[in-house]
């Protein structure tokens, strides 16, 4: 399974053409959607299509996530009955709260399932309770912000600049990082605005998000690029780690590179950069960088 989660692509759950090609779009994770993109009278068809798809096609090197319907909907229980027995990696739980995470966790535990949970935080209540929600189950691998629904709940307009979700973004990030979990940013919904997508994704990365959801395959390349370390970042990180090795040999607690003091947080950040670069195959065994 791909655990990078830089890009997570939503795919409508009742669209065979997109489903069978889900792994060609280069997203780290695909989210097969049984919720918003499936009309009420086609929910049954989408569940059956999902089951037949997963039983017939093996997606390699990609995380397979299914977004089920919310806990308070009629389709929640029907979704779980199908999804819990499938060979998928993760369930994306919409409008997550403590009660719904607990219920989903119990249902998966009853059958000794190894399926993980990604919580979708998209209500004002969810934002305020996010730390407790994440702590409800050991299955939680992280959270995703649902900006569109959150703005409906906040009775505000969703804007390109995103001031209205700034509080939610930072609050969610703090909770996720406090628990060492993943934080996935909300999709950028204007699929014709490439520059806007890049700006929004860079901003999300700057805040601390580890990946971004997407609603269109055309967005994946830009999102991946943003969350992939650059050659400069990798080289700088390797210099820090090499200098740290040397400093340890010499018994030094702190040291400087280019006149700037390097301490533990900077070393940890460098280690994280190198781990991602290694997972992406950007560093050879010799430690040399190569673009793939």
């Amino acid at each position: 399974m791909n655990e990078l989660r830089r890009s997570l692509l939503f795919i409508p759950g009742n669209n065979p053409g997109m489903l069978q090609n889900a792994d060609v779009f280069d997203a780290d994770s695909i989210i097969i959607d049984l919720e918003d993109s499936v009309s009420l009278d086609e929910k049954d068809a989408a569940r059956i299509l999902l089951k037949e798809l997963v039983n017939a096609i093996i997606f390699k090197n990609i995380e397979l996530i299914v977004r089920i319907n919310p806990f308070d909907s009629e389709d929640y229980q029907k979704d779980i009955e199908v999804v819990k027995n499938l060979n998928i990696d993760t369930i994306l739980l919409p409008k997550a709260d403590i009660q719904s995470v607990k219920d989903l966790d119990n249902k998966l535990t009853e059958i000794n399932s190894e399926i993980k949970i990604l919580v979708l935080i998209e209500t004002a209540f969810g934002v305020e309770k996010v730390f407790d929600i994440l702590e409800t189950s050991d299955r939680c691998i992280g959270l995703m912000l649902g900006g569109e629904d959150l703005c409906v709940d906040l009775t505000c307009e969703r804007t390109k600049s995103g001031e209205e979700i700034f509080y939610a973004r930072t609050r969610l990030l703090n909770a996720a990082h406090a628990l060492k979990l993943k934080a996935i940013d909300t999709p950028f919904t204007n699929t014709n605005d490439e520059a806007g997508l890049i700006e929004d994704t860079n901003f999300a990365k700057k805040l601390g998000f580890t990946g971004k959801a997407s609603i269109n395959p055309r967005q994946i390349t830009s999102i991946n690029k943003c969350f992939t370390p650059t050659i400069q970042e990798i080289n700088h990180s390797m210099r820090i780690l090499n200098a740290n090795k040397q400093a340890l040999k010499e018994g030094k607690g702190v040291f400087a590179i280019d006149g700037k003091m390097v301490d533990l947080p900077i070393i940890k950040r460098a280690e994280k950069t190198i781990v991602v670069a290694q997972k992406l195959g950007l560093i050879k065994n010799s430690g040399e960088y190569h673009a793939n």
Partner: protein
Amino acid sequence: MDIIKPSKAGTYESNDIYIMLFPGYEENLIELESVVYDCFGYQIKKVIKDVLKENNINHVLVKAIDKGALDYTIRARMITAIKRGVSNE
């Protein structure tokens, strides 16, 4: 299992198949239109027959309009149509 009312599933979209089931026939009949009939007509009918057999359906007319669906989609749409046809909902 008996189909008690006409039912349908699927779409006319590319890579999908539109299935209609009509009850009340002496035996199972299949009418297939497909954009790839010459190459895959036999295989598509085989999948349809397999699903009918698995669900013990014996007296329906299956009308199928295929737009290049893979086997998993044909199976899924057949199963959906059957479930809809046997239900009173």
